[in-house]
């Protein structure tokens, strides 16, 4: 090192810190100084340079420069007293030199320093994750200690972590470039900033937790959504005690009231991490409570309801194969209102209210809507089979194919017009009857609705055949739809055949609902039952049609031979 380099080593620090006075004077109230906005902007650039210098000192394991720069940095604004992490809305911060509240620009600057310091701590942690030479490792332990000492309590650390992750997305601190500089060019890389920041936060918290301090943690949303990652990192810290315990300098007993001598470092470490895990779990529960409270108080977002409603109605309309087949044959009896003797088929579904509040991040509501409509489809088949006579002719002689031909012919002879063959889902039966569509090719026939051509299995003796899930697997029906059943329909939402209602609750309506439906209380206290309702939306789907039986002679069933039944 020549004399110039020696001089440069000092002057690169001294002349950089010459700008310190310009930054500090901006907040001193002096008339000839920079304005507060200018001081903040200059301070940001200055702090970034200090951060770069400290990072270089860490990389070069230059303890003297690191200590000098960090000390000078720390001395800046040492007249400002902060009761907590310098959030933008921090109250009661006090400027001792100037007197009075701390300006928002200065708070922004101090916040920036915290973020950059947290990033430096992350970088030291990152370096310590790799094996290091003894001397370098010792320096990194010291550097981490110096940086960690700037974070006075667990909440401060977690606030700094929050601010750092937010800054990573908005202010573009240099961390990504730090990682990239280590990696080879011309290859894709995963930049682990997010994971390293979390690990750093957990390490700093581990250093600060004590048996009764803090008693609990403020709720934070990432306690919930990063729960598994937190658990994994805590597990890793348990296993890597040898590496991290010396870094944090917490080899002594965790519980100082314990009389055990000498202190057991391993036990102290696990106690410390257990305590942190407990605190984080309590924070997570608090976050869940906050979330539930928010959902309970939030109003329903109609646009999100529509994301369920529209796909549900669309799907319900698309699924109505029997109704559309009957409509084609002119056998739908349209009513203005539900018949008075209609018991009404109603499906109730409870959905989390959190799906439907405007802040919800839940995706795939359209799938939920389609699932709701599926029950309407199965209802069509169920009502059809309930309306048909429960008798079936056994095959006395011959095969199913010829028996079915005879049955159709017999119905025609009796003056009926067979228009639909209903089968269970059974490929052997279909093959036996020569029905080869299998849903892959469209079936074209005058009695088949164009929109449902792929729902049919084929044509047998000029009669369309269809299979239904849930159909009795022991028989095949031949129906003259005009005579065999009666299909009544009344107005529905968007002609979908169903009416959908979404009901959310407030305290009063929840109490009223509970008195009408005491079964909801089952296993719950009154308060819990009310909370249950406040956190949910009741989705009611009413069918706006019904199928009733007609002339029993117009519906004839044939038993499927045992050898053709499914599962044989």
């Amino acid at each position, binding site marked *: 090192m020549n004399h110039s380099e020696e001089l440069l080593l000092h002057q690169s620090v001294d002349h950089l810190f010459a700008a310190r006075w310009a930054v500090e004077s901006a907040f001193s109230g002096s008339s000839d100084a920079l304005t507060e906005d*200018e001081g903040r*902007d200059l301070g940001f650039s200055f702090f970034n340079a200090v951060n770069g210098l400290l990072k270089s000192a860490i990389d070069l394991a230059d303890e003297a420069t690191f200590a000098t720069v960090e000390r000078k940095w720390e001395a800046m604004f040492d007249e400002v007293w902060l009761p907590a992490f310098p959030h933008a809305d921090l109250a009661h911060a006090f400027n001792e030199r100037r007197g009075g509240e701390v300006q928002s620009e200065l708070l922004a600057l101090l916040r920036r320093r915290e973020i950059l310091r947290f990033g430096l701590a992350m970088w030291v942690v990152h370096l310590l994750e790799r094996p290091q030479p003894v001397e370098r490792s010792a320096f990194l332990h010291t550097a981490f200690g110096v940086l960690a000492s700037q974070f006075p309590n667990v909440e401060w650390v977690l606030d700094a972590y929050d601010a750092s992750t937010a800054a990573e997305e908005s202010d573009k601190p240099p961390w990504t470039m730090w990682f990239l500089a280590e990696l080879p060019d011309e290859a894709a890389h995963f930049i682990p900033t997010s994971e390293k920041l979390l690990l750093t936060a957990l390490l700093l918290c581990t250093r600060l937790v004590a048996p009764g301090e803090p008693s609990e943690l403020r709720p934070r949303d990432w306690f919930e959504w990063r729960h598994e990652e937190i658990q994994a990192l805590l597990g890793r810290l348990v296993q890597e005690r040898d590496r991290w315990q010396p870094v944090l300098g917490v080899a002594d007993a965790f519980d100082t009231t314990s009389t055990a001598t000498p202190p057991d470092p391993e036990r102290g470490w696990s106690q410390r991490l257990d305590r942190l895990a407990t605190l984080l779990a309590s924070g997570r529960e608090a976050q869940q409570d906050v979330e539930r409270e928010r959902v309970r108080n939030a109003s329903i977002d109609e646009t999100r309801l529509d994301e369920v409603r529209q796909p549900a109605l669309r799907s319900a309309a698309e699924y109505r194969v029997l109704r559309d087949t009957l409509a084609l044959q002119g056998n739908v009896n349209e009513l203005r209102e539900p018949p008075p003797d209609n018991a009404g088929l109603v499906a109730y579904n409870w959905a989390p209210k959190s799906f439907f509040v405007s802040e919800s991040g839940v995706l795939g509501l359209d799938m939920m809507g389609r699932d709701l409509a599926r029950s309407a489809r199965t209802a069509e088949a169920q009502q059809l089979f309930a309306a048909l006579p429960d008798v079936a002719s056994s095959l006395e002689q011959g095969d199913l194919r010829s028996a079915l031909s005879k049955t159709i012919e017999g119905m025609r002879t009796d003056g009926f017009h067979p228009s639909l063959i209903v089968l269970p889902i059974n490929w052997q039966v279909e093959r036996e009857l020569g029905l080869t569509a299998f849903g892959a090719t469209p079936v074209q026939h005058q009695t088949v609705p164009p929109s449902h051509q792929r729902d049919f299995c084929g044509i047998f003796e000029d009669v369309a055949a269809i299979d239904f899930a849930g159909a009795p697997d022991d028989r095949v029906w031949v129906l003259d739809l005009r005579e065999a059943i009666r299909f009544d329909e009344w107005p529905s939402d968007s002609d979908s055949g169903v009416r959908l209602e979404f009901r959310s609750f407030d305290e009063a309506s929840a109490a009223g609902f509970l008195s009408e439906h005491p079964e909801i209380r089952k296993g719950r206290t009154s308060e819990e039952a009310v909370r249950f309702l406040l956190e949910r939306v009741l989705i009611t789907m009413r069918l706006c049609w019904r199928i009733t039986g007609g002339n029993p002679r117009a519906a004839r069933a044939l038993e499927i031979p045992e050898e053709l039944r499914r599962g044989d």
Partner: protein
Amino acid sequence: MIESAPNDSMDTHGWLYNVLLLAAIASNLAAIGWLFRMLAVHPAPVAGRLSLRRQALKLLSASNRRKRWTDAIQRRRQRLGWTRFVIYAAALFVVVLIPVDVRWGPLDDVEDSEEFLRTLWQVVGAALGVSVAMVAFAFEAFRGSGQQAYGGSLREFAGASRLLLVIEIGLVSLLLDGVVLFGWGHNAPRGLPAAWAIIVSGITLVGVGYVMHRVVRLLDDSALRRMREERVRRLVDQAMTQQLVGQAATLWLGSSSLPIRTSFGNPGGATPIVASRAGEVVDVRLGPLSRFAVRHPNSQLWLPVNLGDSVAESGTGLYLTGQVSPRKRRRLAAAVRVRRADDESGNRALTEALERLHQQAMGAARGGRENEWRAIGQLYELVLLALPKAAAAWGIPFAGAVMAPGFFGVGPVQRIADFLYDELVAAVNANSRELIGPITYLPQHVAIEATRLGAPALAAPLFQLYPAMYALARRGRA
């Protein structure tokens, strides 16, 4: 006669009516033709050049219209060159033709007037000779002062001292005396022409005295420094204007619906169209280009150059997919207006001036010449602090792409930061301790001053030199 009068009137009205009718039909046809053409060439303009430079200036002038006009006037004045001299010389000669008689003293008599003008002619000639000798002396003194290398030029020195102006007036004065003695002008060689020739000669003689005084003052160090600073400010102003116009042009072209795309190089499979000449792109006539693109839907035009870019000999001005005749290619190439590079203006001039300063600073750093480097450091500071002012003149904050222009984000600020680092490396390598202090002091000093000027963004690249300086210092310990 009495009966024919109404017929004549009817004939006249009928003729006028026919003319008006034809005019109306013609204008309607023209309007319909225009409309059809508009539909045919949409989104290209129906006619006209559609200057990219003008569109960019309009976009910029949304923030400062006055600046746009003063710049336009200044630009036209510079382009006049020798024409300016011809214009005011012609104006001086026109005066002798004014038909006004002056009968004061010797001007009333032809012989007295001739005698006086002959003597004056010789005096002015001699004075002019002295001026020319003074030019040589002053230029030599200026060159010898060593200031030229710091950014001053002879042309600038001549302009600042008004030397050229006085020589120009002196030449006109000699010619004017000759013309009047020859008898051209109203009542020449006496009367107003003689009076006017005497006045112009008098201005020349007074001017020679003024210029001598001014030359002596300009050779003073502080005056040279002021001149140099003025030049740097002008250079920065021109460079910033050029940069902003280029950036505004890119913005405008990107947001327009014209069927012309921009590219950094050959977009693939396209044929390059060689620019009309080597030099600097001063404008792009988008009207002909976009009309061509509309008429040739199977071809795609790509513009790989922006306003202010340099085009080398046989360099590409456009890229085109599809085949066109050589004549059309020449016409397309002509739409990209290229002017021979002028070393005295724009980004190029600023870059070259900075390069010269850097070369000299490197020499100073290696040789440990602190005062020489300090003088250059002041110029660096001047440039850095003039940049935000120049941007502010257009009402644009000096930050983001304005501070770090181009694909690689390198502008004068980044160049100077790089120069400072290189000079520091040179000083460290040469063990020039005297230079370490001034070089390490400058970035933070300029950063603070720039913040005061409302350009805090400038502080970031300058402060970022310090970690690099530290790493350089530590290099010796590694």
